[in-house]
C-alpha cells in the first residue's frame, strides 16, 4: 500500500517575497551586486555576512527605505501588485506601516525614545488610521505582552529601559499590525549573552505561534542557526552561498562560508 503524500510546502506554495537582481552602488562602491532572494510564507530567511557585506542595505531595500539602481521586489499579497520600488512615497509608507514590520539593531532608529513604550506601539496603529483610544491601548498592551515586555512598565519611555527591553518594544511595534513580513536587522547585537538568549526565545515563540515570515540579518551564526530555515551568505554585496540552514552550516561549499563556520567553532 502506498501512502498518498502531499507535495512539500516549498513546492506548492508561492513565495511571499521575491527580490530579483537588486544592484545598488554608493558612488563607486557597489553595495549590492545582483542580489536575489525568495521567501515563502511562514519561513525564516537568515542572511549572514561580515560588516560591509551589504546585508543591511539589502534589508533596507526590502523595507523600501532605499531604492536600488536595478532590480525588482514583489510581495504576494492580495492588494499589492507590481514592483514595489515603483511605488510613490505615499504608497510605500502605507505598505511599510501596515504590511512590513522592522526591528533595527539601534533602537534609536526605530523608537521615539521620549514617548511612552505603549505610545511607540500605538504610533503604528495610528498611522494605519486607528482613532479610538481604548482600542489603541488594548492593542498596544496585547502587542507588548506578545513580545514578553513587562506590562507594568508599558508607559515608561524607552530611554529609561534596558537594551533588551528596548528591543522588545521595537518588536511589539513591528508586530502590532500583524504584518505579513517581519524584518530583523541584527536584533540581538549589543545585548549581553543571557538577554540575547531571552530575546531569541521570544522571537522563536512568536514565529511558532504566528507563523510570521521573517528575514533576519546577523553576523552572528548562532542567531541564524537558532531561527532560520534557510540561509544566504553575503560577501562584498554578493550572495556567495544559499541553502537550507543545516546544510550550509554542516557542509559549507564556498571558501568564505567555510571560513565563517570555522571561525565560529
Amino acid at each position, binding site marked *: 500500500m502506498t501512502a498518498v503524500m502531499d507535495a512539500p510546502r516549498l513546492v506548492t506554495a508561492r513565495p511571499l517575497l521575491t527580490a530579483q537582481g537588486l544592484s545598488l552602488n554608493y558612488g563607486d562602491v557597489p553595495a549590492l551586486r545582483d542580489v536575489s532572494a525568495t521567501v515563502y510564507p511562514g519561513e525564516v530567511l537568515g542572511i549572514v555576512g561580515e560588516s560591509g557585506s551589504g546585508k543591511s542595505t539589502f534589508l533596507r531595500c526590502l523595507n523600501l527605505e532605499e531604492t536600488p539602481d536595478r532590480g525588482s521586489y514583489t510581495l504576494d499579497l492580495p492588494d499589492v501588485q507590481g514592483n514595489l520600488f515603483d511605488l510613490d512615497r*505615499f504608497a510605500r509608507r502605507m505598505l511599510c506601516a501596515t504590511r512590513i514590520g522592522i526591528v533595527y539593531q539601534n533602537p534609536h532608529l526605530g523608537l521615539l525614545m521620549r514617548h*511612552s513604550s505603549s*505610545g511607540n506601539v500605538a*504610533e503604528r496603529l495610528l498611522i494605519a488610521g486607528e*482613532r479610538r*483610544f481604548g482600542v489603541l491601548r488594548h492593542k498596544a498592551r496585547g502587542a507588548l505582552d506578545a513580545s514578553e515586555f513587562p506590562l507594568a512598565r508599558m508607559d515608561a519611555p524607552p530611554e529609561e529601559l534596558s537594551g533588551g527591553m528596548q528591543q522588545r518594544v521595537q518588536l511589539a511595534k513591528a508586530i502590532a499590525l500583524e504584518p505579513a513580513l517581519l524584518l530583523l536587522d541584527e536584533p540581538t547585537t549589543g545585548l549581553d549573552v543571557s538577554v540575547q538568549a531571552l530575546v531569541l526565545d521570544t522571537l522563536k515563540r512568536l514565529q511558532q505561534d504566528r507563523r510570521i515570515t521573517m528575514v533576519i540579518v546577523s553576523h552572528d551564526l548562532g542567531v541564524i542557526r537558532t531561527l532560520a530555515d534557510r540561509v544566504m551568505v553575503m560577501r562584498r554585496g554578493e550572495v556567495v552561498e544559499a541553502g537550507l540552514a543545516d546544510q550550509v552550516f554542516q557542509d559549507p561549499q564556498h571558501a568564505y562560508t567555510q571560513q565563517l563556520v570555522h571561525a565560529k567553532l
Partner: protein
Amino acid sequence: MTLQSLTKDWEPMAYGFLDGSAKREIRRKMLKAISVPGCQMPYASREVPMARGWGTGGLQVSCTLVTPRTRIKVIDQGADDSVNAASIRKFLASVSGAPVTTDTLQADLIQSRHRIPEERLREDQVLVLQVPNPEPLRSVQPNMSIARQMHADADYGRMWLQLYEQIVRSGRVMQGASYPSLVNGRHVMTPSPIPRWDVPKLHMARHLTLLSAGREKRLHAVPPFTRVEPLVFDDVPYRVEDHAGLTCHRSGARGFFMNEIPQADGTSLHEVSDSDLGVKTIRAAEGEDTRIGATWYVDGEMS
C-alpha cells in the same frame, strides 16, 4: 510721457507702512492661503518697527489690509488696553489714518493675540491672529523638510500620538492652547495659541481668519464657512476649559472664558477675559445705551 508723470511723488513713507511690493506679495500669499485652507504659505516677512515675536506677522497682514475707512480693533490676550495692544493700535492708526475702536461689533479688522472675541464675528469682519509657531508638526517632527512631506501626505498619525501620550501621563488631554485642528478635512493647522475654548468658534464661522507668523515667515487662513475640527480620539470627546460656571467678579458676566486672579488668602477671583465684553456688560448694567452682540457661547454652552 515722462517717468515723472507715471509715478507718484516721493513720500517719506508708503501708505500702511509697508511698501507696495511688500503688500502685493502678502496679498498674493493671503489669496493662496485662502484657496487652500489651513495650508501654510511662506512669505517674505519684512521688517516692521517691532521685535520679531511681538506680533510682526499679524501687523504685516493688518498693514496690508487696512484702508482709511477700516475700523481697527487690537486685542492682546482678550484685553484692548494692554501695552502691546495699545501700541499696535496706535501704530496702525498713525500709518493708515484709519479709525480705531475697542468695540467688537464696530470693528472691521481685528488683530488679536491669543483670543477670539466672545461676540460672534460677521461676514464683513476679518480676524488676524498673531502666530508664534505655525507648524503643528514641530513637536512631533523637528525636521521641517519631513514635516512638509507629512503635510503633503496628510500623514498626521503622530499628532494623535501626542494626545495619546498626554492621556496616558495625565489622564486627560493637556494641550491648553494651540490645539491642533483639521481644516476643511485636509490640513492640520495650529490655530495660534488661542485656548481650547476658542477653537470651536472657528468652525463654520462667518468671518475670514488670517493667521500669520512673522518670525517663521508663514501665513495660513481659515476662510468663511470652513470646517475646523480639533483632533480627538473617537472615544475621548473634545473638552473646552471648565469656565462655563464661572462669574466675572467685576461685570457679573457668566459663562465666558475667564482670567483667574489669585487672591492673598489663597482663593481666586475671575474676570472675563474679553475686556470689551466686560466693559459693555458693566455699562449695560448701569443703564447706559450699549449693544452687546450675539455671543458664540450662551450660558457657557457653544451654540
